């Protein structure tokens, strides 16, 4: 709880820091809200997938490459092979399921370390993306696809935000209200205890891998719709870091069993907002990474210090 409030205050602080730098008039503030909501929503959705997997004690390093592969398949399919958008979407979501299944099966049935499996994935999907596109860029024009995944809705909010809200509700029900989520926490917290409780551990772990890959696939649609073109050799690189970082900043522990939906979304928002702050405060380009990293670190330290000053917890 305390953690969530801390995150929320940090996020609000960052938002205000951006806000004061947005000149008034000309709808600037609305436009900026839309831009930020868009990015926050995109990262938030993929962080929810990554976070769910982390809660279940897993990890996926291939998120970025896999989303790059999906974006490439989408763009190449629609641009060069004449797939209709629904067809392309179906293919990519199918890929999400299949890849998640493969990761999950390798980790559970063959007991390979998740780190190795998804690191191999990181390389393999990047290679496949380049190969599929023949090392050439691919892109899409304006149209139905762009509207479906990157447009302002009647309320002035971007459609991505609507997806985030839906995803948040779904993941909230799943993780924090349903038995499935309960099992994921139990597995992440103590796999043996879960097993001894008669939970089909493997099945739920696989499920978590599928969820993670599915959100990455979904991200690829929003990404392509927003930027319209992809360069297969680097699209999505580092996304896994951002997605995992969002979840971890939001309170997920890489040891598993910890974290919640609101925290994850706040974590992802903080990452997005930090980038915006750097942009709006004219931080020198060369120092911008240092500023983001520094702010994140200061935030984490503050959080810890504040929590310590509060009443002593039961933990020794």
């Amino acid at each position, binding site marked *: 709880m305390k953690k969530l409030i801390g995150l929320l205050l940090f996020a609000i602080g960052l938002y205000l820091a951006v806000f004061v730098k947005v000149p008034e008039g000309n709808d600037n503030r609305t436009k900026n809200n839309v831009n930020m909501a868009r990015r926050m929503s995109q990262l938030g959705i993929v962080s929810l997938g990554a976070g769910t997997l982390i809660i279940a004690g897993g990890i996926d390093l291939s998120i970025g490459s896999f989303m790059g592969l999906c974006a490439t398949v989408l763009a190449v399919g629609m641009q060069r092979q004449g797939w209709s958008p629904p067809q392309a979407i179906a293919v990519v979501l199918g890929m999400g399921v299949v890849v998640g299944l493969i990761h999950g099966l390798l980790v559970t049935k063959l007991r390979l370390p998740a780190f190795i499996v998804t690191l191999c994935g990181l390389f393999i999907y990047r290679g496949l993306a380049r190969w599929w596109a023949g090392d050439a860029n691919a892109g899409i024009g304006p149209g139905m696809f762009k509207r479906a995944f990157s447009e302002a809705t009647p309320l002035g909010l971007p459609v991505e935000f609507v997806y985030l809200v839906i995803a948040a509700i779904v993941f909230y*029900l799943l993780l924090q*209200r*349903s*038995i*499935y989520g*309960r*099992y994921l*926490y*139990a597995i*992440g*917290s*103590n796999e*043996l*205890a*879960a*097993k*001894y*409780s*008669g*939970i*089909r551990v493997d099945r739920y772990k696989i499920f978590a891998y599928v969820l993670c890959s599915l959100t990455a696939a979904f991200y690829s649609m929003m990404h392509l719709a927003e930027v319209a073109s992809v360069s297969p050799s680097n699209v999505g690189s580092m996304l896994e870091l951002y997605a995992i970082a969002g979840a971890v900043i939001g309170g997920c522990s890489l040891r598993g*069993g*910890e974290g919640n939906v609101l925290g994850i979304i706040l974590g992802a928002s903080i990452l997005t907002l930090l980038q915006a702050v750097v942009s709006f405060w004219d931080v020198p380009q060369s120092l911008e990474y240092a500023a983001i990293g520094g702010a994140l670190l200061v935030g984490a330290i503050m959080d810890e210090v504040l929590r310590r000053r509060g009443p*002593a917890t*039961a*933990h*020794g």
Partner: protein
Amino acid sequence: MLEAVAVSKGFPGVQALSDVNLTVAPGEIVAVVGENGAGKSTLMKILAGVQVPDAGTLRLNAREIRFASVDAAQQAGIVLIHQELNLAEGLDVAANIFLGREPRVGGPLGLISSRIYSDAATIMQRLGLDVSPRAAVADLSLGQRQLVEIARALSLQSRYLIFDEPTSSLTERETERLFTVIRQLRADGVGILYISHRLKEVCALSDRVVVLRDGRNAGDLLREDVTHEALISRMVGRELKQFFHRDQAATLATASAEPIVRVRDVRWSASQKAGISFDLRPGEVVGMAGLMGAGRTELAETLFGIRRRLAGTVEIAGRMIDVRSASNAVEAGVLLVPEDRRRQGLVIDFAIRENIGLPSLGHWNRLRMVDRRREQETSLMLRDKLRIRTPHVEQIVGLLSGGNQQKVVLGKWLAREPKLLLLDEPTRGVDVGAKAEIYEIMNELAKQGVAVLMISSDLEEILGVSDRILVMHEQQLAGTLTREQATEQAIMHLATGGMGNS
């Protein structure tokens, strides 16, 4: 009727079970006893579908059964409460109790009903587990965790319930309560298998006792025939001086010595009304009793420097010690055998040798290199002394039986030379034979001038080995009893908050 017929099971280097038979009928309490490593837990795991036997059959109501998973055994109504606690620490008490069987709403959505908390509270009340169902398991004391495990099994509505040492961290009071529940279950027609090293409990509770020795059947006694002597001779196959009693002369000899340990106003929690003060004399064995959650473990951890001391002083042999970390304590000669062997006592993936060497390596070798020979010799010596049942000292500790693991925890510290030895439930899960050895070791250390403080929930043990008994109640020292004053009633009186003389 649940039957195991000619069941065998081997592990690399160990034949855990050979042709073992066991039956339990509905409405019957069958106790299973045997030395550490006799194969009790292995047999129970086989019955509960955790492990698969190499040979032999299981039958339920005369029909042969074969469980592919824990889940399948639970479906058949057979539930095991494991010897080693297995709780999801991140989840709360209610979630752990109902894990895998949450009361649901919303059909296929599988949403969890908020009824879970009231349902949990009901079961917890039955067992006398006095914490909030929303409390995180990570915040509970070991005894409380053990009750959570038991509550989980009780909620299962099973036909056969297997308790693998359920009372090893419970105090007399919770044990009594548990017995009431178990007798109730028997009356409801549940068949019960009960494992314990506390022979008093076995005598009090069981209809029948099955004895295992070295993985074989070594006796099947009806209630009428059960006596300590009968059990022990079947368990260990030899005569044993049946129970340890501290020598009266030793008590007298220490009574006049100058204290070597002075604890003054020690506090570790802001909610404590007053600090804790007491003295220990060299050569003295002092027992510490109290109810579950009375704060005995916390006190020991504070003295050892693992838990932050908020106030107070600790003086060892005339020197004030500034105990800020466990390593300082160890240097000052304060050693702690912790209560939770798997979490605090052992590196479960290390071999026996490596665990035993861990606290002593730095002490042994000035060059900071691992002295493997000495490590090897020490662990072999301790293996024999403590009768650790293992193929070799390179065995991974996690694969030992519960009691043998506990012996390794003790062994770790016996390689050092303490001034103050803190023992937190040192005989938890240890068989009678080895218990006697442990008391003997305590006695020997005391003779060398060490002050021994032993926390125990087993009143019989406390009464048997202590020169003096400290009793804790709600994180306070409720009183001190001399050997003459000490009776079970007197201890319970103090432990439950009655006023004492101190």
